[in-house]
């Protein structure tokens, strides 16, 4: 991200991802996730080489990237699917995409807004870049667990609240 962000990110949106990341990894992969201190990410490169990307629509727009080291992604996929998989196989990307879908979906529920999520995309390889919104900061939450390190990179903003769900 080269331009200066002009808006602040809503802390409740970030908190929703803290909850959902821990919940999904614990339930589906069986690991406890320890979250580090959030920081701002100012460049388009994700933290690691494997990115699960989910776009948001509706009252919340932007995208969230779950960025894994290759080793962490491999370990997580193995625990999630019950078998080791090559990063080149379609099932590897499918598994990473499904986990990211669950993390985004769970967070969306916590928003209490009328937001939608897209079908997740998975990109694998060194040096890839993420197109992010420049008017809101990208918040990076470092995560570690027994199977390795990963990061949640949140670049979303609320654009309306008139359709907020009655809780």
């Amino acid at each position: 991200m080269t331009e200066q962000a002009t808006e602040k990110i809503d802390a409740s949106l970030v908190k929703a991802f803290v909850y959902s990341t821990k919940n999904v990894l614990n339930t589906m992969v069986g690991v406890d996730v320890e979250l580090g201190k959030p920081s701002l990410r100012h460049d388009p490169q994700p933290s690691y080489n494997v990115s699960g990307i989910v776009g948001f629509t509706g009252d919340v727009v932007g995208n969230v990237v779950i960025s894994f080291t290759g080793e962490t992604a491999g370990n997580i996929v193995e625990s999630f699917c019950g078998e080791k998989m090559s990063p080149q196989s379609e099932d590897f990307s499918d598994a990473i995409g499904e986990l990211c879908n669950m993390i985004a979906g769970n967070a969306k529920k916590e928003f209490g807004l009328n937001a939608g999520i897209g079908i997740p995309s998975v990109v694998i390889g060194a040096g890839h870049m993420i197109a992010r919104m420049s008017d809101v900061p990208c918040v990076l939450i470092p995560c570690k667990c027994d199977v390795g390190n990963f990061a949640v990179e949140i670049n979303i903003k609320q654009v309306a609240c008139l359709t907020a769900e009655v809780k």
Partner: protein
Amino acid sequence: MKILLVDDSRTMRNIWKRVVSGLDDCEILEAGDGQEGLKTISENGPVDLVLLDWNMPNMDGLTMLKKVRENDKTTPVIMVTTEAEKLRIIDAIKAGANNYVVKPFTPDALKSKINETLKKASQPA
């Protein structure tokens, strides 16, 4: 028993398969989206249970459910989805879903919902 699994994620279908494989005489059919799900039903005849994701390409699970219910009011359908907001759950129940499981889930939780749904479906109305 014929069970149709409809999810665009093969990983998720494999997880469901492991859960339902414990059921007696279970024949599993799979589809990757709502369109494929409808085609599978029309080619294979009625099924005894459908596990159905919501967000899928080509045709989403809610649309498929509504189309299934145009002709078939009785086949038990369980939505298994990340869509967890109350209004979405109400939409699915209104469209004819018999039960609802929010991802993430434990295998035991899904198994219990399946048993509960099949038990209810076997009781006389």
